[in-house]
């Protein structure tokens, strides 16, 4: 990186520059059933350079990758080509973030662990959940990552953060005779806790058994549908992404500051804060790709769009005095109903979806349900083979949020979200 920095610093054609570098060491285990099929390790560095050229009252920029094997002459050629490209680009002027040195570790017990031993311990924790009669974990992939992320720019930004993180992809399966079903589990964390891993996989194993027993309920029906944290986060990010400075600048947004997202609503009012960090989340960061500081920002307050968010460039385009930075995590305020109150009336609680389908512009929310629990007022039974759909605006207006809160990946917020009157077929 020092060679690249030297070449950029001495280039008088440039009005600015930025270097983003991510060095990753990984150790990876791939299991087929309980047998180890493949062991992988990686040791790679990704370096991306952006040059900025002020010309004709405008700013041009262009980015390129630098591979590890490139020498000084190779990098100089790339810079020359990028300068030519930047001169073709006539964008409105903006300033890069200035100053600021930082060197921080994201809290994690993964970073200092010996990879082989940790990989083994994680595998043991996963397969410790394989205790359900008829159940099995048919595949499991374990990824241990140590990332060193660095941003430098021409205005003195020099920031480094280190992250240790783990991703587990496990496939809990339930089989009886020739019939077999599975569910998908994608579990990410920065602090390894064997008991938590086992409990999480065991919960999914039990749901795989429930999927095996699930039947298609009588349809069509209109029913209250409960979403769990993963889907709540997807729904809230759909709303938040619409409020990004870049989306607004591109005229690709639906909502603006001051808009009421829950007009004429009778449900719980939505308050969402985008954050730099959520404890235990691999998405947590000290800075964004520009190297700018991240400022936690409430984007939706009591159902009203309170603020936009995003990168320093697009913030400046919208005349934002202090851009927030691209915030990677989210906190939503809890609602007024306890989970047991939500579950007094008939409901359909989604445990596994093929993927929540959201379309702000067409006012749509829906998706295919692989496993849900249908409570008819007396007892809850597992169901499958159905899909749901509804108007997103009506969901927002009338939704209820649980009083109980959970932390799940990059999301802190209500454990359940109730969508009244969804159509289920």
């Amino acid at each position, binding site marked *: 990186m020092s060679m690249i920095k030297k070449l950029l610093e001495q280039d008088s054609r440039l009005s600015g520059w930025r270097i983003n570098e991510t060095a990753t060491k990984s150790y990876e285990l791939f299991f087929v059933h309980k047998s180890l099929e*493949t062991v992988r390790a990686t040791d790679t560095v990704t370096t991306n350079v952006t040059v900025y050229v002020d010309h004709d009252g405008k700013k041009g920029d262009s980015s*390129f990758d630098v591979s590890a094997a490139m020498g000084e002459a190779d990098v100089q050629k790339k810079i020359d080509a990028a300068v030519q490209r930047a001169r*073709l680009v006539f964008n409105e002027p903006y300033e890069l973030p200035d100053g600021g040195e930082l060197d921080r570790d994201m809290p994690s017990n993964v970073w200092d662990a010996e990879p082989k031993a940790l990989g*083994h311990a994680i595998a043991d924790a996963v397969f410790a959940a394989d205790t359900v009669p008829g159940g099995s974990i048919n595949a499991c992939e374990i990824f241990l990552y140590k990332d060193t992320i660095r941003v430098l720019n021409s205005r003195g930004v020099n920031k480094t953060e280190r992250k240790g993180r783990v991703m587990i992809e496990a496939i809990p399966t339930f089989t009886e005779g020739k019939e077999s079903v599975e569910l998908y589990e994608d579990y990410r964390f920065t602090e390894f806790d064997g008991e938590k891993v086992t409990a999480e996989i065991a919960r999914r194993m039990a749901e795989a058994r429930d999927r095996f027993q699930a039947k298609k309920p009588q349809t069509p029906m209109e029913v209250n549908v409960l979403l769990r944290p993963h889907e709540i986060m997807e729904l809230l990010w759909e709303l938040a992404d619409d409020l990004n400075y870049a989306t607004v600048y591109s005229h690709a947004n639906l909502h603006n500051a001051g808009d009421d997202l829950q007009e004429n609503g009778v449900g719980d009012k939505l308050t969402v804060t985008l954050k730099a960090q959520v404890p235990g989340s691999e998405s947590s960061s000290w800075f964004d790709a520009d190297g700018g500081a991240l400022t936690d920002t409430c984007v939706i307050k009591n159902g009203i769009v309170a603020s936009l968010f995003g990168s320093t460039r697009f913030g400046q385009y919208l005349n934002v005095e202090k851009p927030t930075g691209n915030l990677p995590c989210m906190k939503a305020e809890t609602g007024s109903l306890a989970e047991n109150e939500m579950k007094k009336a008939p409901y359909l609680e989604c445990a596994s979806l093929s993927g929540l389908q959201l379309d702000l512009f067409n006012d749509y929310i829906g998706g295919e349900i692989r496993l849900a629990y249908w409570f008819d007022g007396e007892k809850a039974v597992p169901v499958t083979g159905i899909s749901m759909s509804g108007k997103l605006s009506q969901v927002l207006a009338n939704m209820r949020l649980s009083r109980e809160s959970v932390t799940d990946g990059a999301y802190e917020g209500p454990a359940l979200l109730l969508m009244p009157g969804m159509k289920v077929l």
Partner: protein
Amino acid sequence: MPFSTYLDGKRQDCRELVAALGKHFRYVSILGTDVTATAIRADRNMSMVQDGRGECGFVLKMHNGRSFIEYSLDDVSGDKQALAERIIRETAVDAALQSKMIEAPVPADEPMKQDFVRENDFADFDDASLLKTCKDISAEIIAKDEHVLNAIAVIQPYQVNKLFITKNRELSQHYGWANGIMIAIYRGEKIAQAREGDGAANLKDIIAMLHAGADKVIDLAKHLSTAKAIEPGVYDVITDPSISGLIAHEAFGHGVEMDQFVKDRAMAKHCMGQYVASPITNMHDGAAATHSVASYFFDDDGVLAHDTQIIKDGILVAGLSDLASAAQLGTAPTGNGRRDSYKRKAYARMTNTFFEPGQDKLEDMIASIQHGYMLFQTNNGMEDPKNWQIQCTAEYGIEIVDGKLTENYVSPVVMSGSVPDLLKSISMVSGNFKVIGAGMCGKGYKEWVRVSDGGPNLKVKVKLG
């Protein structure tokens, strides 16, 4: 454009590293990648010319007599013995896990030396001319209709160079592909985003496609700005080639990726030789099956491209394998071993996946429907190879009433249900045929590779919501 000079210069380093590791492993291969991509984009306010998603590095695949070991690194220069020792050290497993390693046969290492090149016209176009095209297209769309809030035009050429070396095999390949897309953001009754796009082997075809598509994307945006929600139900449906391809990809393509057979994650494993679709259904996958975005000469395991017929006259006849899954199943690999990049593992993956054309005329297919929908443009889909559920989302549909397409647009349209029910409901197959080479495919929620899919128009009965 010749093969990568960078990779050419690394041939001897690769050979020496393979030899050094060959003292410790029964099989060693190295894949070197030098993929360059460019992203050119213009809209009302901004423009961009920069490197796109490329890669440059190396990945080793070894077999220790029992199982597979891989190592990804950026460079292979320097002391090969020391590098080999480092690789062995960093890929070691905890002693207690060693006994749990699978016992798979050592892959064959058939001798072959060949350099593959597919020429393209990329050198005829410089950055300035491509950016001007994007700016002109964007400006043209904006100028045509005052309701257009913004118009985005994108051209993305990329060039693939890969070098594959084992003790007995040395292959190189060079080819390119380009994608073009335009998006109109339109304020009508509501704000709508419409897109048109495709891929091609030559940039002149992408530029022609973009110029020809401006009116079409505005017309689509107008209609989408009045689109209504569909009433959930089971309908007779005609698919455009994009949605036919999405069905082929999600309904059955993922289900015959044979690494899922090894893991007992695919119902298709138990259905070989059985009817899984209507008898008029024929489906293929393969880098050599057609010329599109995934038409490489050899896969990331060094296996030559195939054309695999997956479904023949409704009967499931074959699956898709990478080297590791084929070794475990005792079958020959089908040339479907693909990596997200040199940093990631090879899996059995789709390439170009499509249904074969049939005999029916599209107008007859539409005329055969009293009330239903014709579906257009892939948005996304999700596989469920174990349980054969399907979710495919189309950008929009047009209502068919009394055998005619109406002006009633619905958007989005989520198609779901059981894979066998859907495939067995195929009652008409058009003679039209198109493969769209602009897609990306994940395995689960990761491991992204470029794919194409398509086919003819199909008439099916399916749940829409």
